[in-house]
């Protein structure tokens, strides 16, 4: 997988990122992959193991809400199931709903860098520009 198109935004207490995607679907995937890249990195010594696949379904009133809910759901699932997601497939999506499969490995195969407690609405921005979609989101760490 190539480099995920995101950068950090300075925030005193927490961590913010600015992330891009050619389509809304790409943006959602990139944001989630960036979030897990911030949380942990795969141990070089970790053995190859089968990924677990989880189905995700989200609906929301707005696309902003859908974006926050998507990241929150992945974060929460990761913590509850002890998985780090590295492969995301969005099967169906419109502006207020999505269906996806998230594949991840046991978190024991990863070295944790930082805990993200939550995805916040604070300072949240989601916009479409000439070269695609961009979002700014702050994580509570």
């Amino acid at each position, binding site marked *: 997988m190539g480099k995920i198109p995101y950068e950090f935004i*300075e925030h005193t207490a927490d961590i913010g990122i600015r992330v891009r995607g050619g389509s809304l679907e790409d943006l959602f995937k990139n944001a989630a992959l960036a979030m897990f890249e911030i949380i942990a990195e795969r141990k070089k010594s970790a053995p190859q193991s089968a990924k677990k696949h989880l189905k995700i379904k989200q609906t929301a009133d707005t696309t902003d809400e859908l974006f926050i809910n998507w990241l929150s759901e992945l974060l929460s699932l990761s913590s509850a199931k002890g998985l780090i997601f590295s492969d995301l497939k969005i099967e169906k999506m419109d502006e207020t709903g999505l269906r996806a499969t998230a594949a991840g490995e046991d978190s024991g195969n990863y070295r*944790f860098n930082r805990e993200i407690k939550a995805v916040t609405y604070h300072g949240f921005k989601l916009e479409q520009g000439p070269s695609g979609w961009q979002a700014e989101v702050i994580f509570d760490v």
Partner: protein
Amino acid sequence: MKEMWQGPLEKIDDRRFRIPRSYKTGMLVDGIIIADERLLKSIRQDKALEQVVNVAFLPGIVKASFAMPDIHWGYGFAIGGVAATDIDAGGVISPGGVGFDINCGVRLVKTNLRYDEIKDRIEKIVARLFSDVPAGIGSKGDIRVSPKEERQILIKGARWCVEQGYGVEADLEATEENGEIKGADPSGVSDRAYERGKAQSGTLGSGNHFLEIQAVEQVFDRGAADRFGISEGQIVLMIHSGSRGFGYQVCDEYAKGMIKALAKYSINVPDRQLACAPVNSSEGKAYLGAMRCAANYAWANRQNLMHLARGSFEKIFGRSWQDLGMDLIYDVAHNIAKIEKHKVGGKEKLLCVHRKGATRAFGPGSPGIPAQYEDIGQPVIIPGDMGRNSYLLAGTRRAMEETFGSTCHGAGRLMSRHEAKRRVNFSELISRLKAKGIVVMSSGRGTVVEEAPEAYKDVNEVVDVVHKAGISKKVCKMRPLGVIKG
């Protein structure tokens, strides 16, 4: 550094500054910042003061939107914010005024050990604690609970631990709300929150959470210190942790639900992370019930952590924790909303007091403080930053009159975690701390670097401000000897 906040700040006295409610249409009260000119320079450098302004929009807010000197930019409320709403006047409750880590808090345990007795064994003690106390992201505890037991923890908090033999009744007497806040409603807790909570009881977590061995360095108030059982050179243990994934899940779910409540109750707030509902609404009551579950989870967690630490000391010293005098001085919440009675304009009102990154600091004679501390005020525990001091203070009558019995909660961040990571070198930091006689063990290098002392304001300055402002008084300060971080 450039100043990011250019709004009005009127000086009330040397340690109080006002953002007048005329600054922005929609503010219902003034913003009051407890700080001094020096700290204000750093406070102005992020958006924390704008957040103090935003909180002044909350329906039913009384007196002022307060900020403590450790204030820094959060989400919704600033961290270091205190706000109370009048419940009978439609006052609201906001999950963003509590934070994701519900009842993140700190406890201080004394010992009868002296620094001279243990100074050559600090590394050994830290290693033992590091091996016995699960720390780090995603760490799982040895104290595994069934769903039925987890429900009991949510209702009984630290009492559940005492019933299991992980502590004694006196521990509960020395805990805010006796470690079991009433009104917790497990029926409002989702299956996902249960799932996240079941393996994490008795785990430290990561970030700024820690377990630290400290030596009492200086006593400022001999009378109060005697009552707390503290003297210079004494070894104490500080535990800083919260409600872990359980609390994050509760906050996340209810904060989302509250966004819908904004439209339902026609509430206008400038930041979605300030979403709220009247305390007396179904949404408000449901959040209170679930938040109290998370608060109880956190008290149980710190009780379990103390139990594990007591066990480590027993193994090292070959004596029981009772023989080692490992009694709990006190345990306080730093992120919570409480229903309390306070006088506003000479009239007693039932308020919902939000303390987000702030400590309850009830003065002498206030209800709800342990009988043995009744005449000196509630102990207030202010953790430092791993390289500098931590403090034990006592609540004051002035805090009751002015800030709903509240004070600061720590040093407060100065530098972003990202910037700290860029500027601080792990090995250099560890050697620097070692040269100061501080041993650090951590499950991750990143956390230690992000929590480097230079990333924080000087806690000595912060505490000096609240002491001089009279909203809590210094009892003693401690210096770190050994730290375990997640």
